[in-house]
Structure formats: C-alpha cells, structure tokens
C-alpha cells in the first residue's frame, strides 16, 4: 500500500518539476501559487510583531492603553487568515517564498513564508481564537497593573506563533519556537509578585529548553544530511526514497525532533510545565496552553509527516510517538479528576487531548491529528475562557469556592456546557468528529501492521471515558449545588461573554468540516493541498459505526458516574471525595510523583550546585571584572587629573603670566603723549626703510 502511495507522490513530484500533465500535476496546477494575496501573506506574522513593539514604545499613550493596537493586529490576522482559507477552500493555495539571510558553509539560511493548506489552517486558527481571546482579555485584564505590557507580550506571542507556522524551513521554525517560548515565560510570570508564579515561569522555560536541545540537534542532523533547512527539500528526499545520509540518520533526527515536539506539546514525561503554566492570566492559558503554543509540536510532526511515515526514514520513531501520545492521553486524564483548581483540571485535560493528537500522528493519521488540533483549539479555549469568567466572578480558582453558578452566570454556564460536550465527544459537537477520526485511524493502523496501535486504541477509548468523568465532575462542582464562595457572583461583562458565544459557535460547528465520507473540506485543506506532505495519510471512508457504538455509550457512562458521584450537593471536599480509590487516588493527587521525582532527582541536586557555581562565578569572575574596571577607571582618573592640573593648567597659567609680564614691561612705553607715539611710528618707518635699502 505504502509503495503505491509513494509512487503516486513521486509522479506528482516529477510532473511538477517537468511541467508535465499527469493527473497529480493537473491537480497541483489548478492551485493559486502567485498573486498579491498570497505574496503579501508575510504581513500575517509581521503585523502582530510590529504591534508588539509599538505597544512597548507608545502603548501607554495609545487608545485603550495598547489593547486596541493588539486587538486590531489580531483582527487583521483573522481577516487575512479567513481570506486565505476561503481561497484555499475554493481553489487551493500553494505558495512558498524565501529570501536568503545568511550562509553557513553550503547551508543557506532563509527567511520566508509558507502559504499552504497546513499553515493556512493555523493562520485561521490563531487569528480567530486570538481575536476572540484578545477581545475577552480587555475585560478580564481590566485594572491590571501591567495592562499595556501584557498586551505587548501577548502580541509578541501571537507573532511568534505565526512566525513558527509560517515557516518554510527549520531555522525560521526554531526562531518562532523560541519567540513563543520567551513570550510564554513573560506571560506565565505576569503576576511575578507571587514567587510561585515566577517558579512556574522558570519551570516552563527550563522544561521547554531541555526539549529544545532535542529540536536543535534534530534540526542540525537533518539540515546537514539534506544540505538544506527547507522542509520541502527534506520531503523531496523522502518522496524520492533516496538512500543516503538522511535515511541513515533518520531515526535519530526523527527522535530528537520529536523530543522537541514533546516539550512544546507537553507530552509525558515532559508535561510537567503545562499545569504549572496556569499561573498566568486565564486568557494566556486559553490562547497559549490550549489553542496555539502547545500545538506547535503537533504542527511540526505534521510538517514532517512523510518523513515519519516512510519506513525507510523515521518510520520506527512512529511507534515511540504513538506510545508517548497514548501514555500521555491515558495517564494525564486521571490527574484531572483529583484537581481542585478549575484551571488545572483543564490543563491536565489539555495534556491528555494533546496526547490524542500526538498518538494520531504516531498512527499515521495526519488529517485526524490536525483535525483534533483544530477542533480542540476552539472548545478548549472556550472552556478556559469560561473558567476565566467563573474565576472573575468568584475571585478564586478552587472549586471549593464555587457551586450553583448556573443561576448567576447563565451565559458562561451554557457556553461551558457546549465546550464540555465538544470535549467529551458528544454528537454533533466538534470533539465527536475529531476524536472519532483519531480512534478510527488507530484501529486502521492496528489492522495494517502497527500492532502497538491496537493497544493505544484501547487507551484512547478509556481516555474518552475518563474525559467524560472529570468534565462532568467539574461542571457539577462549579455550576450545580449551592454557592459556597464569598459575596454575590455576577455574570461577566459583555466583552467577555461575546467571545464565549463566538467560540461556542465554533466548538459546535468546527467538527462538521470533516464528516467522513460526506463532507470533507478539512481533509482537502491540510492533506491534498499541501503538496506531498499529506500523502500516505489514511482518510476513513465513513463513520466507524462499531467504534462509535463502543465509545459514545462509554462516554455517557462516564458522564453518568460523574453525575452520580458529584451531582449531589455536598458541603465539604472530604465528603465529595468519599469514594476515593485506595491506591490510585493518592498517586493521582501527587501527580504520579513525577514532579517530586524531578524535584528530588534533577532540580535539587543541580539547583544548589548551579546556584553555588553561579555565586562563585558572580563573586570571583564578575566581581573581579567589575572591581578591575573600577580600579582601572580610578587610575585613569588620577592620570587625567594629573594631566589636567599639572600640564594643562600650567600651560594656561604660563600663558597668562607671560602676557602679564610682557604687559607690565611694555606699558612703560605708553606715556599717553601722542607726539611720542608719532615719533615712535616714524622711527619704525625709518627702520623699515633702512632695512629695505640695506637688504
């Protein structure tokens, strides 16, 4: 099967090169590959970055203290993304443009823009979710001390993410990757007055850096093997099936790049940063830790899909990917059950859903993984913004202070319910379609020689049950029963509820873009309209009815058990948790002791040593340099003073004294007698005349 697919791909490739007329080439030649709309697409990532710098410089004096600029830039991205999406839907767009910015030996470093199905989907996603979240943030961040700075870093983040997804090569991807990392550090630590938040920001940054080492090494191996940073050149080598340096090192390149993806996409065991990253403001969680930043890893796997798909190249890594994704989706779902912090429940849920996406990529289901990325971005940012709205109302993150909120905040409640239904995968909400496609793809992969996929399929089905359980628990604790917090909660202002409604619309309808066998524009966008990348992807011909008949009842059972345990109002957390499962509950509550293990095994031993080393360096090297510079400038000052006082001053004083002395001598000649002067001048003339005559 695979060989026929690759033959097909090769035909397209060769036909495109020769300008021939095979079927594939005709399909490609119908695409838009020029024209002002695609050629100016680089504005998509330049505009938010320019906005970020303008807000830093002039934000406080601009209208709405910088919010307007950030909001308009996201509006621009949304409109441009939508236009490109419509173009891609109707005609298809494939356009790559790069400019050379430097060279390392034979390797050319380029900067450019990729406008194809995959990146257009991401432009649209970042634009729409970003625009709605920025709108919401105006209400949520109202009165914040660093309001302007927040929107500057938020725009920087959006710009970084767009740089990442617009990248046609590995170098630009890494630049975008790091911009996203830096802005996430700034935003997680936004409330830095509380030291715990600083720790969270550091943790996110460090864990990501560890993963980034993998990304760098993988990128270097890949670039050196192919002699190019361009994705298209890598894909070309893969499609042609060239045995060479790339195929030789493909396993390591693929594995290292996947480690990079594991960091950004919070895969087990590098997931630890994401729940802590909830320390940032809620709009940040919605945009970065649910919808866009964490999808970067999945996006990278999608970009390099043929590389991972081909058995000749990194095919072996696919089994690692599916296992990591499967473990993540299964293990992390349970952690959400024990959490009291409403945002942490959603955080572990996000990690678990990212596990689904990664596992789908590992199962060779390119479209399914990206489709889940697409739908998840809408409903998870909806859930985060809903949680933000609740937090805004009750001034607490803990479900202990909530309860009964459906009466006080009907809009938040209903949109939250829609998000929940989409997340747990109830027909016809978005999550149903994407999760079903992932599970169907795993089943297909399991039936086609990837044995481990069968095991992961079981985990995936179990994960769907767990998802239903913990979401029901959270909805019950938050919106049902009696209110347990302080004061009278109130519905959030319109600027916060409208984005919720907008996202609820997407959370409902996004799934309809890929109804297997009936209406599949999404498959066309990201698969057939990214030349060569989506080839080899399996698209289900229709719904997998037996699978749905297993999963949907299981989800309903999960909802039922959740409601049975948590639906009845109880006063204290202890009563609520009375059903605790003996061994597992402490294990989950302590997050499988992974964080403790990292703390004991890595952080504590190294933290002290690193701190001491830094202290030593500070005291002995930096201080020495500083003191040396100080001493040197003191000596220099002495020299300067000596020069000034003893040399320069004496010159000036000497000149003055000379003038005075000569003046006192000469003044005696000036008697005031005009005739004497006349006589002198006559004598002078005579003297000159004599000189002339003599000489």
């Amino acid at each position: 099967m695979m060989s026929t697919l690759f033959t097909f791909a090769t035909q397209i490739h060769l036909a495109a090169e020769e300008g021939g007329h095979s079927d594939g080439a005709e399909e490609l030649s119908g695409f838009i590959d020029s024209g002002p709309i695609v050629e100016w697409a680089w504005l998509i990532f330049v505009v938010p970055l320019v906005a970020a710098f303008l807000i830093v410089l002039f934000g406080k004096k601009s209208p709405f203290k910088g919010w307007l600029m950030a909001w308009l830039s996201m509006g621009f991205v949304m409109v441009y993304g939508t236009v490109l999406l419509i173009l891609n839907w109707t005609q298809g767009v494939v356009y790559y443009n790069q400019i050379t910015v430097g060279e390392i030996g034979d390797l050319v470093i380029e900067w450019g823009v990729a406008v194809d199905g995959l990146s257009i989907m991401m432009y649209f996603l970042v634009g729409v979710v970003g625009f709605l979240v920025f709108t919401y943030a105006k209400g949520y961040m109202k009165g914040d001390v660093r309001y302007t700075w927040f929107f500057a870093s938020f725009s920087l983040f959006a710009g970084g993410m767009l740089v990442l997804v617009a990248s046609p090569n590995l170098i630009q991807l890494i630049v975008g990757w790091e911009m996203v990392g830096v802005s996430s550090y700034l935003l997680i630590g936004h409330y830095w007055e509380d030291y715990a938040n600083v720790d969270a920001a550091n943790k996110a940054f460090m864990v990501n850096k560890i993963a980034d080492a993998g990304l760098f090494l993988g990128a270097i191996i890949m670039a050196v093997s192919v002699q190019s940073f361009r994705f298209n050149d890598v894909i070309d080598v893969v499609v042609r099936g060239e045995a060479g340096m790339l195929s030789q090192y493909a396993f390591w390149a693929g594995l290292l790049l996947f480690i990079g993806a594991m960091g950004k996409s919070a895969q087990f065991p590098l997931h630890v940063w994401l729940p802590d990253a909830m320390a940032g403001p809620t709009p940040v969680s919605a945009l970065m830790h649910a919808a866009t930043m964490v999808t970067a890893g999945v996006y990278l796997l999608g970009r390099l899909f043929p590389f991972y798909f081909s058995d000749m190249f990194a095919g072996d890594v696919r089994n690692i990917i599916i296992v990591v994704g499967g473990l993540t989706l299964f293990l992390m779902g349970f952690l959400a059950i024990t959490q009291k912090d409403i945002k942490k429940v959603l955080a572990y849920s996000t990690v678990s859903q990212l596990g689904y996406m990664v596992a789908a990529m590992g199962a060779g289901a390119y479209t399914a993984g990206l489709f889940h990325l697409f739908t998840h971005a809408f409903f998870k940012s909806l859930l985060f913004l809903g949680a933000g709205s609740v937090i805004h109302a009750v001034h607490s993150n803990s479900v202990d202070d909530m309860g009964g909120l459906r009466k006080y905040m009907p809009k938040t409640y209903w949109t939250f319910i829609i998000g929940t239904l989409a997340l747990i995968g109830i027909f016809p909400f978005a999550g149903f379609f994407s999760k079903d496609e992932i599970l169907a793809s795993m089943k297909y992969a399991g039936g086609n020689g990837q044995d481990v996929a069968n095991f992961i399929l079981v985990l995936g089905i179990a994960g769907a049950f767990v998802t239903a359980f913990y979401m029901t628990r959270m909805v019950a604790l938050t919106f049902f029963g009696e209110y347990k917090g302080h004061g009278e909660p109130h519905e959030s202002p319109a600027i916060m509820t409208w984005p919720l409604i907008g996202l609820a619309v997407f959370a409902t309808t996004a799934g309809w873009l890929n109804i297997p066998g009936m209406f599949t524009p999404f498959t066309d966008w990201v698969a057939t309209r990214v030349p060569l990348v989506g080839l080899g992807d399996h698209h289900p011909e229709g719904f997998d009815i037996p699978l749905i008949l297993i999963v949907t009842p299981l989800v309903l059972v999960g909802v039922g058990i959740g409601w049975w345990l948590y639906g009845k109002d109880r006063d204290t957390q202890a009563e609520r948790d009375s059903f605790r499962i003996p061994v597992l509950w402490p294990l989950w509550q302590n997050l499988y002791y992974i964080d403790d293990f990292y703390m004991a095994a890595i952080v504590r031993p190294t933290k002290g040593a690193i701190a001491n080393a830094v202290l030593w360096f500070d005291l002995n090297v930096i201080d020495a340099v500083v003191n040396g510079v100080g001493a040197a400038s003191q000596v220099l000052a002495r020299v300067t003073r000596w020069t000034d006082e003893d040399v320069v001053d004496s010159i000036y004083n000497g000149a003055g004294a000379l003038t005075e002395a000569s003046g006192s001598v000469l003044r005696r000649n000036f008697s005031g007698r005009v005739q004497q002067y006349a006589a002198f001048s006559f004598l002078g003339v005579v003297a000159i005349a004599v000189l002339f005559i003599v000489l």
Partner: protein
Amino acid sequence: MTVVQFTLLATVLFSLGLYGVLTRKNAVLVLASVELMLAAVNVNLVVFDVYLQDALHAGQIFSLFIIAIAAAEVGVGIAIVLLIYRNRQSADVDQLRSMRG
C-alpha cells in the same frame, strides 16, 4: 629744473611737517603740520608722474584724492579739537594724556 630740486622741496616740506607734528603743543598747529606732510607727498606724486610720463597720470589723480581726503580729515580733526577745547578749555596735546598705559 631737475627732479632732484622738487624732491628736495618735498623732503624739506615733509621734514618741516614732521617737526611740527612732533613738537607743536597746539593741536591746531599739529593738524596744520600734518597738512604740510601731505603737501610734500603730493609734490612727490606729481613730480614722479611727470618725470615718468605716466600715460594715465596716476600720480596726479592720487594727489587729487589726497587733497580731497585731507580736506575731510582736517574737517573731522578740527571738530575733535574744538570739542576737546570746549571740554578742557585747552588744546594742548601735552595735557591730553588719558591714553597713558
């Protein structure tokens, strides 16, 4: 009549003028002596103009300029002397020593 006699005349006139400038106490007489020196110069210019047969008669024209400027200078000089006399009731140059260094 040779050029020597005229130059001698000019020399005598110049010397008398110089003597007057350096020795007279009365400022008016000093001014008059200056006029003598200028006259000597004029004589010299005219003599050499004729002697050298200058086609443009530059010497004679210069002497006319000098006469005109000397008239203006005497006008200014006499006015200054008059003002000094009014202020000090004297025009004795020996007493005008306020320029002493």
